């Protein structure tokens, strides 16, 4: 408790200090995250991911010092984010931009980013076409297509599902994952028999009616996309409470719904839940072991890494790479160029920035929630899909088709 207060005060101090301290070798990175409001928790994860990269890889950063100038993008209305970007570019003269939890913020910021001609690393915002809006956008996080498209195929093949019902939060990421899943699931011989818009992202709805409807339709799998966090835990609880597992309906979805920071809170209801995601804390590779260990040491044993944190971690890695490649100049075009085709050995496994789309190419892991010997919930890996691109842009669907 008090430690938190201290942390807050410390954060305050650090920010004021860093904002003033300026050395020849300094590279200023403007961070736009919703430090308040519904996205505050994700902001914290991403922020920590960035900080942790800098801490763990100080030697990579030398001889430069990276200064983070943090701005709150507040509610997901785009306005605060846009003004923040504007001022970071014109007042603080930052060398790079990073962050963006909400897609509307990234979309609203696009014209400014374009005019600013600085590298802008998207660390969470998931709407696929965002990277088309500015040639300075590079995404190290994910789009819904990465996981859902991969999952569609796996559901039909590995899980031998014939029919599926999709329940999704009725906003772009939700509709994206619906399209993505439907696309590949039906391409692999499955059939989506119903698609249920289950409330919006703002307020957690009671999922019972939606799941009741799904249960009545007796599909092989229920594919769910909802925002990580309360929505996800509510989903799992409702799934358990309605006894759908007993009714032989598998609950599957993108890794969002088993976000590690929420997993334990879901309780045993989550056991058997199968998700497709690019990261979970249980991934078995040296980079991740290092990452997780350092995290727990830094932020407490009961805190944990998750896919948003790794987005921040990889994003910071990308920025540092650009810094080194441009000798700290960080001219926008060069910085972006230096990242095209950039490969990195991330805690989530090998990743690469697609030279065409400036979006991430990464592995997707199909995993099942199991109870470990330690009595905690863990992700058991069932299959890996290598080098997954953003399907939406790959298939040039709707607004994802690159602008000419």
């Amino acid at each position: 408790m008090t430690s938190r207060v201290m942390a807050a005060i410390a954060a305050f101090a650090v920010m004021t200090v860093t904002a003033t301290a300026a050395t020849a070798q300094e590279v200023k990175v403007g961070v736009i995250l919703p430090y308040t409001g519904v996205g505050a928790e994700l902001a914290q994860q991403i922020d920590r991911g960035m900080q942790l990269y800098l801490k763990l890889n100080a030697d990579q950063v030398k001889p430069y010092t990276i200064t983070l100038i943090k701005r709150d993008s507040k509610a997901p209305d785009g306005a605060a984010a846009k003004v923040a970007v504007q001022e970071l570019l014109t007042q603080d003269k930052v060398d790079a931009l990073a962050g963006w939890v909400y897609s509307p913020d990234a979309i609203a910021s696009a014209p400014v980013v374009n005019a600013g001609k600085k590298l802008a690393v998207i660390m969470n915002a998931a709407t696929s076409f965002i990277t088309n809006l500015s040639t300075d956008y590079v995404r190290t996080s994910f789009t819904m297509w990465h996981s859902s498209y991969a999952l569609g195929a796996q559901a039909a093949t590995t899980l031998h599902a014939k029919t599926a019902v999709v329940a999704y939060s009725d906003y772009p990421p939700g509709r994206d994952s619906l399209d993505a899943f439907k696309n590949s699931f039906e391409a692999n011989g499955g059939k989506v028999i119903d698609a249920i818009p289950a409330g919006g992202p703002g307020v957690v709805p009671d999922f019972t009616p939606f799941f009741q409807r799904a249960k009545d339709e007796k599909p092989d799998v229920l594919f769910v996309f909802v925002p990580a966090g309360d929505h996800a835990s509510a989903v799992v609880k409702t799934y358990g409470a309605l006894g759908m597992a007993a009714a032989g309906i598998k609950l599957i979805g993108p890794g969002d719904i088993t976000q590690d920071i929420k997993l334990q809170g879901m309780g045993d209801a989550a056991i058997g839940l199968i998700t497709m995601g690019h990261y979970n804390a249980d991934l078995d590779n040296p980079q991740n072991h290092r990452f997780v260990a350092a995290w727990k040491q830094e932020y407490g044993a009961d805190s944990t890494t998750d896919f948003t944190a790794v987005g921040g971690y990889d994003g910071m890695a990308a920025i540092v790479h650009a810094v080194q490649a441009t000798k700290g100049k960080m001219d926008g075009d060069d910085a972006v160029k230096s990242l095209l085709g950039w490969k990195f050995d991330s805690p989530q496994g090998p990743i690469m920035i697609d030279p065409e789309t400036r979006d991430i190419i990464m592995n997707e892991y199909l995993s099942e929630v199991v109870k470990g010997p330690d009595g905690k919930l863990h992700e058991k890996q069932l299959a890996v899909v290598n080098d997954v691109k953003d399907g939406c842009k790959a298939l040039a669907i709707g607004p994802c088709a690159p602008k000419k």
Partner: protein
Amino acid sequence: MDFATNFASILLGGLSAGTVLFIVSVGLSVTMGLMGFVNLAHGAFAMFGGYIIVLAMNRAHIGFTAALALGFIATTAISVLLERLLYRRLYRAGELDQVLFTIGLIFIFMAVIVIVVGPESQQITLPPALRGQLNLGFTQYRTFSIFLIVVGFLTVTGIWLGFERTRIGAQIRATVDNRRMAESLGINVDRLFTITFAFGSGMAAIGGGLGAEFLGLDPQYALKYLVYFLIAVSVGGLGSVVGVYCASLLLGVLDFMLKLYVPKGGTIFIYALTILLLLWRPQGLFGKKET
């Protein structure tokens, strides 16, 4: 599946959703009816209580019931404190000043929770007895929902009896009916208000804790759900406990049913319903005319 079970599930789901709404809102209704005080910060007390309850369970590992009691007491205490020190000064102020004040209060609650607990949302872990499904003979349904419905019913009966049978209850009803008259009859309205305010906040706290299973619990809570609380109060009719109960359940069930059959409608129904109900009865289902 057969209609009966389907209908039952709609009813149960709707009722449990409505019950949460009721438990949180009832205090707001009575205090607004009593003093005409626009206490938008009511949800903040629900949030505060919810945090106490959840943290007590998750961090201090206190039992469910004990945690609820603790939440109730703590929230009651802080509400009395705030009422005595601050709210009191604004009784005679215009409603807009009250809006300004209570919104400010919400902001403070939010910020303090972020600083002390952190921005992450809290998970409530129900005691095993309340998890999973319960066999009602005619249908299976999630135990917690049924638990909520029962709790809600007991609560409303309790409060109702309190209103009908106790002296304070009578005074409250008199004051809601006609404040001037009540004052001229020597009823100490301020004291009444302190009591109802404290009790209402306590109820809100319980609601925050019980609702966490469905609604989650994070620093945004007080703002996120404010509209729903206000809807329940206005549709029910200011100051009417039974009104809020019926309104909450009605909205809960209708919303649930429409979601089940026309999910495309999203959240549109609850608002459409409210508009229709309020145009039909501007003073609310159980409200006195001329508010």
